[in-house]
């Protein structure tokens, strides 16, 4: 059973407040490019929103792919997070993830993915349309 965020995209309006608060709470800046969740608005065709974020899947191929064991277990939440100080930015996790759930920080110096905000995901709290749940 995935421990990550669940998204009901039928409710999504593409406002990006999830990405905005994610970047602010992780980096101290409003900067959706550094967010751990992102929304693509794909219009006019097919006219829908797509959301990318780590699903915290049970298989976690990223953990196996990481050559320096920088993706570590948060024991209290039972999920894996990227220790950016140990990440070498090789991109193996990005390549192996089947969910497009992690990507490189714009600085190019480490990969980023959802860490569930230590159990209190800010995107879930801010989403005005109830798209996201844990």
């Amino acid at each position, binding site marked *: 059973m995935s421990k990550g965020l669940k998204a009901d995209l*039928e409710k999504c*309006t*593409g*406002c*990006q*407040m999830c990405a*905005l*608060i994610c*970047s*602010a*709470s992780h*980096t*101290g*800046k*409003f*900067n*959706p*490019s*550094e967010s751990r969740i992102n929304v*693509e*608005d794909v*219009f*006019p065709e097919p*006219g*829908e929103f797509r959301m990318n974020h780590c699903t915290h899947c049970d298989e976690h191929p990223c953990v196996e792919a990481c050559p320096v064991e920088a993706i570590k277990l948060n024991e209290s939440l039972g999920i894996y997070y990227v220790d950016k100080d140990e990440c070498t930015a090789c991109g193996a996790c990005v390549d192996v993830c089947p969910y497009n759930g992690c990507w490189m920080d*714009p600085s190019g110096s480490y990969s980023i993915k959802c860490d569930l905000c230590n159990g209190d995901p*800010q995107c879930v*709290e*801010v989403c*005005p*349309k109830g798209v996201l749940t844990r």
Partner: protein
Amino acid sequence: MAADGYTGKVLRVDLTNEKISTEPLNKEWAKQYVGGKGLGAKYLFEELKPGTDPLSPDNILSVWTGPLVGTLVPLTSRYVIVTKSPLTGTFLDSYAGGFFGPEIKYSGFDGLIITGKAPKPVYLWLDDGKAEIRDAKNIWGKDTYATEEIVRKETGQKMARVASIGPAGEHVGLISSVTNDLTRNAGRGGTGAVFGSKNLKAIAAKGSLGVEVPDMDGLLKMAKEMIRTDVVDNPDHAGMITDGTPILVEMSNDAGILPTRNWNDGTFDGHEGINSEAIKSRVFVRKRACFDCALACGTWAKVRRGIFKDSASEGPEYETLGLCGSNCGIKDVEAVVKFVEECDREGLDSISTGNAVAMAMELYEKGVLSKDDFGGLDMRFGNAEAYVKMPAMIARRQNIGALLADGTKRAAQKIGKGAEEMVVAVKGMEYPAYDPRGSIGMALAYATSDRGACHLRAWPVANDAYGSQDPWNPEGKAATCVEDQTRTSIKWSFIFCDFYGVSFPNMAKYYSAVTGNPSSEEHLRSLGRRIWNLTRAFNVREGFARKDDTLPEKMAKSPLRSGKTQGKSVSKESFEMMLSEYYSLWGWDSDGKPTKETLETVGLGDIVPRLSYLR
């Protein structure tokens, strides 16, 4: 970068010499004028030579954000184009939501100041503090949808945000717009023509520089609380969440102010085919929000059957439903979806375009124009199949479109034969969708707006035709306009969306939290008064005065024909009385010019020496 909401940088682009430079934002001006409208007005007043031809290389095309844009302060996704309008000759500030505004900030700029004319078509690419003038050969001639797609491929950024002109702006049509994120338009006043006159096809941006504030934890806490209590749960916003602006179609029809068949009536027998219920039941696909908006008033709409099947667009919004629907005698929302998709693709202001097509329809029915003028089309009111061909005809200056492309006033002057009496515009800018013959407050709002007939500076219709006040009693309307213009002047400087009913104290709270500057209701009111006086001074410097704050003759001479407004008009006596009272409330002389004392009181003493009427 200081942690005060601003990037602290302004980009200057000289297209003639293909030169780009970055300079620090004038922080003193930022304190006095904030951003958006105010800051854009200050730079324009200081830098544009009076009397400049708006379509000449000397005109300044500027694009501004504000300190709150790109933050979590709700409903602050907007940008503004500030320039001298080629349609009206006045100051012009034209706004759009979507995603382009925040991307300018993330790219590292508070504003862009563009002058000159490129030797060949170009577009501007902003990328993390860098800017580049690029060859537009692959996008010139393309519509705005195709332009966005091609620019994303050329820049390799699949989520690059693009603001571009369509064929209408390329042909320097004076009712052309700048379109971003497919369906959002800095629509009014001929912004597209200014781009076109400079050979500037588009501005595209993708940034990852971020926006900083003094106390992020404090701001997030406050913003989360306000998003809930002041936006989502605010009862004033309920209609915007459930319906969006189309909710106004029925309200206007009931009040007798829904423009119908080129402003010859205020109620429309086909209103049920273009109202909010029609949208929800016939073309609704999903809600589509602008960046950072918890309301999501926008609707992505798609036609499911009939001759316009698969046409898709956002909206249509109320103004479009009124002017491109009832005002053209169109009874089916599907046709309006197709028409507004065409306007967005071609890069046309749907308010002015709806007015232009409605006037052409009246001229056709009266025999002044013939099928030949429309390339063989039967352009009677209500002929949806013919009317959807008009945006392309206007944008590309084909047939009668060659004249309509420059708006109703100029077209009518060239057509003659009584056409001038059918123009419904102020200073050459066509009316939005509220007939002043059933809302006398709007008569004053249109006449005194700083960019021609506009509903976004004062909106007294809220209290008269839609509210409990007598819509024909001029008393108190001047005060309402002054209050609204003060509030919107500062609101458009942050830049908040129109649909956030944000109070002065809350604006002050947000401003302080983002910039670290102290603020209060009175502080923001004083800025609002300063900014409105500055745009007035700009227009006076360009030669505008009381003689221009007028309404078309039709408002007094031609009463409406049915419903609540049957037999109603705007009396000249009432109008002049309101106008005099309005000037007096602002502290302007009887000719509508700000006095020296007034300018000094609002903090504009520095511009007094540069206004010839005060010498």
